[in-house]
């Protein structure tokens, strides 16, 4: 019970675009931190009233409970298609972002995101990579590390049969239509600041009409990892970052084709 006379001072208000509700996420889940950063970026860019969020299916979609912007839910992996429809339906005049998890984006929705990148769709993609299917109970994802135990890779992922973790930020950076691609983490205040800067840049690329922008964010999922909150963050630093290096893989101010056939 909170004492009636609370002597604590508020040093930092929550973002205005964050709804005043409790987080529905598990203790130690870092998706909530990502939601907070998103709120700060939306506030600072002043785009709350002009933004539409498309959430995929998974824990990342819980952002819908806390982020006060127009919202549309997509089916598993289909957020880029839905987002394309919304963006073009509004004639490119509004800001549209998707928030997708690693099962959603990198497995069932891989074709959808690749083709959004091929088209250089003016969308911003927040890709929460927690190396497993959190919502369904911690199964193997395309991003699961080799050797990582999950409920569908009980002895650890075997690359001989289950292949290798997919690197989305590097992959999408190879497409001419992608304006910005970065991988970030929220394992410390310093990383938090870098993630915020990356997300702000990503939105700016969309505002400037350059191309698709994506920020992959490593996010701890303590229940999937069967670790407590602190150890889950340590696990990200020690193992996930070994597989998935942080950094900016693409940052361009215009997207152009390598070759144009003329006179056709």
């Amino acid at each position: 019970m909170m004492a009636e006379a609370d002597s604590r001072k508020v040093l930092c208000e929550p973002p205005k675009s964050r709804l005043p509700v409790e987080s529905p996420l598990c203790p130690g889940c870092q998706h909530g931190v990502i939601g907070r950063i998103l709120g700060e970026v939306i506030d600072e860019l002043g785009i709350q009233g002009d933004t539409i969020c498309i959430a995929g299916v998974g824990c990342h979609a819980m952002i819908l409970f806390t982020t006060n912007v127009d919202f549309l839910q997509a089916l598993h992996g289909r957020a880029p298609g839905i987002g394309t429809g919304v963006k073009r339906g509004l004639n490119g005049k509004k800001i549209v972002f998707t928030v997708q998890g690693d099962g959603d984006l990198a497995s069932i929705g891989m074709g959808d995101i690749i083709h959004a990148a091929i088209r250089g769709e003016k969308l911003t993609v927040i890709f929460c990579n927690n190396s497993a299917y959190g919502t369904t109970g911690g199964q193997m994802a395309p991003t699961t590390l080799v050797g990582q135990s999950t409920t569908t890779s009980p002895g650890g992922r075997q690359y001989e049969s289950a292949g290798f973790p997919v690197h989305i930020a590097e992959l999408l950076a190879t497409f001419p239509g992608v304006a910005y691609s970065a991988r970030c983490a929220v394992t410390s205040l310093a990383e938090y600041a870098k993630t915020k800067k990356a997300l702000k840049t990503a939105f700016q690329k969309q505002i400037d009409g350059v191309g698709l922008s994506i920020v992959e964010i490593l996010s701890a999922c303590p229940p999937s990892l069967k670790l407590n909150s602190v150890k889950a963050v340590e696990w990200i630093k020690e193992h996930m970052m070994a597989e998935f290096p942080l950094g900016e893989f693409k940052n361009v101010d215009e997207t152009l084709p390598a070759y144009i056939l003329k006179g056709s």
Partner: protein
Amino acid sequence: MGKKILVSGNEAVGYGAIYAGCTHYFGYPITPQNEVIEFFAREFPKIGRSFLQADSEVSSINMVGGAAAAGVRAMTTTSSTAFSLMQEGLSAIAAMEVPCVVVDVQRGGPGAGSTQHAQMDYLLATRGSHGDYFNMVLAPFSVQETFETIQLAFHLADKYRHPVLVLTDGIMGQMEESVDLKTVEFEPLPEKDWAVTGSRERGLKRNFLHNSPGILGFMTGDTYRSNLERSYAKYKRMKDTEVRYQAKDLDDAEIILIAYGSTARVTARAQYEARAEGLKVGMIRPITLWPFPTDIIKKYAEKVKGFIVVEDTMGQMVEDVKCVVAEKTEVHLVGFLDRHLPTSTGMILPDVVLNRIKAVA
């Protein structure tokens, strides 16, 4: 009277969309509907509307859902094999209560089947995919009616916030007839105040569209049960007010023919010839396949010697007719096996229908 042009059924879909005020088209090539996507690619940019070739029909239906959720009139067209790919998206669109139009220019199945005509998507279209929902399904039988049906489809979609399907087929799509280009007038529609357009003009009060009534229904004040009750109340209103069909010579009929789309043209010919020979034959042509015109069939079920359903399948719509007739009289099928050739180009011709009429009479 508007301008008269000679066009194919597939192009009439495009003209219908233009006259309906459709602004966004998303599609993917597949035979026998390629003239439709090519029409939109050619004509839409000229008049400042949006065309996009999607990476698959899985994507095109989701793009349609997104654009429609943003409040514009959006559509896609496809054919059977790929209509299957759209089922996931259609179920979600019905759950989101977003209005849009999908045209299925039917080809043969199962699988990749054939690239020719067939009417084998009847059950899939009228029953929908997973979960409790129905599509509204319209079936024109001429190029002129195709043009007008697209306009009606957009109106009904907006009226009910629901996906509306238009079923044609390879024959309907490829044949050419004259079309009188005119805008069909409808009753006024409510504003789309539910659309996700950004909340600035709503004082940051957000709009929220979802496809999971049993998970996120509470966000909009629903329970799972109240959500499905509400949608089924909507389906009841559709059944009560939107059933459309064309009936001919029923009053003294001893045999009633039932057919839609391209086979209705063949069947109408057979009915005409039967009357010319003095046979008391009538015809019902369902225009809405869902909601199905059950009342008119029920009305004659105890009066006639039999119904003959003519459809280019092994028997799909005939099951709906049997269900309504409830064994009060005979129900016969003139179907796929009555085609004049065993190949994919085989067609049900008027003679085979006329012969069956004589056999039943």
